[in-house]
């Protein structure tokens, strides 16, 4: 029965997660506290762990809470719960899109949506840069008034090297990430 609660809790988190990433943590904290299965100490451990483990924050949280709650079976149930809404919703939406794919409306919509998506990807570079390349929000007056402390020069150099390696030398994404991970361990550690 408690597994059902765990499942339902993370199903709800998966269903209402919009935008993703760390923005989801408050929602996760709130739901988990409502069910009384997590202390604030555990929550701050989870936040710290999410910063240094790959993968979607929601999945990390589900695995973490489930595991602390009742071992591997718990993490499995919670992770299944958090994934299921995405999975089902996407399958339904794709059915819908396929059905109307030949309609003028859907085709016209995607003519406009694709450029917006490209702009969105470019904007994501700004979001990722914040608190990594610079300390705080990139689009702010701090860019001019923040002084030297606003910029993290080693990560900025790594960013520049990445652009050269990938843009000019066509290095593969995973290799660049491994390379910069190793460099970061020594230079930023």
């Amino acid at each position, binding site marked *: 029965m408690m597994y059902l609660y765990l499942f339902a809790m993370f199903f709800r988190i998966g269903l*209402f997660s919009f935008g993703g990433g760390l923005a989801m943590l408050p929602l996760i904290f709130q739901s988990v506290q409502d069910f009384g299965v997590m202390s604030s100490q555990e929550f701050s451990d989870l936040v710290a762990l999410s910063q240094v*483990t790959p993968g979607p924050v929601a999945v990390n949280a589900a695995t973490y809470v489930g595991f602390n709650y009742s071992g591997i079976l718990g993490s499995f149930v919670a992770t299944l719960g958090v994934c299921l809404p995405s999975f089902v919703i996407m399958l339904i939406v794709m059915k819908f899109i396929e059905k109307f794919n030949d309609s*003028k409306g859907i085709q016209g919509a995607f003519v406009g949506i*694709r*450029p917006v998506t490209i*702009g969105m990807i470019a904007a994501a570079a700004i979001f990722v840069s914040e608190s990594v390349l610079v300390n705080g929000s990139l689009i702010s007056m701090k860019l001019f008034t923040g002084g030297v402390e606003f910029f993290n020069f080693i990560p900025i150099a790594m960013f520049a090297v990445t652009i050269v390696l990938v843009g000019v030398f066509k290095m593969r994404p995973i290799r660049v990430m491994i390379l910069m991970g190793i460099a970061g361990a020594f230079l930023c550690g």
Partner: protein
Amino acid sequence: MSNNNGKAGSVKQYISIFWEFFKVGIFTIGGGMAMIPQIQQVVVKDKKWLKEEDMLDCIAVSQSMPGVIAINSATYIGNRMKGVKGALAATIGVVAPSFIIIILAVTFLGAIGENKYILGAFTGVKAAVCGLIAVTAVRLAKQSLVSVFQWILAVISFVAIGVFGITAIWAIIAGAAAGIIYNSIRFRNSGHLKDDVNKKKGSTCERNDGKSGEAEK
């Protein structure tokens, strides 16, 4: 016989989908968008599982729907390739690394968050992700934006989301509306819809759009 081969072949493909998404999952660091350079490299360029346009559609739909973005995209791509089973293979693949790593971390390394080398490595990877996303965005723009209209939309979207912090879904809805209006005007003027159908199939030999795009340069 051939039936057996077909089965073995498709099992192999499911494993391949799983494995590629497993790798994507390992390197999803610094948010869902970190997946995109890798998906573009593997799914579009190396394996040719999807066209560039399909990937953009996938990202747009994944961002607009509730749910975990990484899982949304994996489900989309897997389903596009091999139906529900493909979606399952991709989703399990993208989730498995998180699942395994969190359990290992909780079991063996209580204080992993405090290790300065690991923190440094993550800073390095995020700096790389930032560069990778920037390069990918430029590449996608060069390959997929074929008209002045589309370039303008892309720039507006970049500024609206990146500078003014508009939520992605509103930008996508606005883009859809702009696309529908643009297409219906063009359709009425030119009398044939085929131009925009070709664009969807990745054709480069577009009459009107190709010209206007070049004229701009």
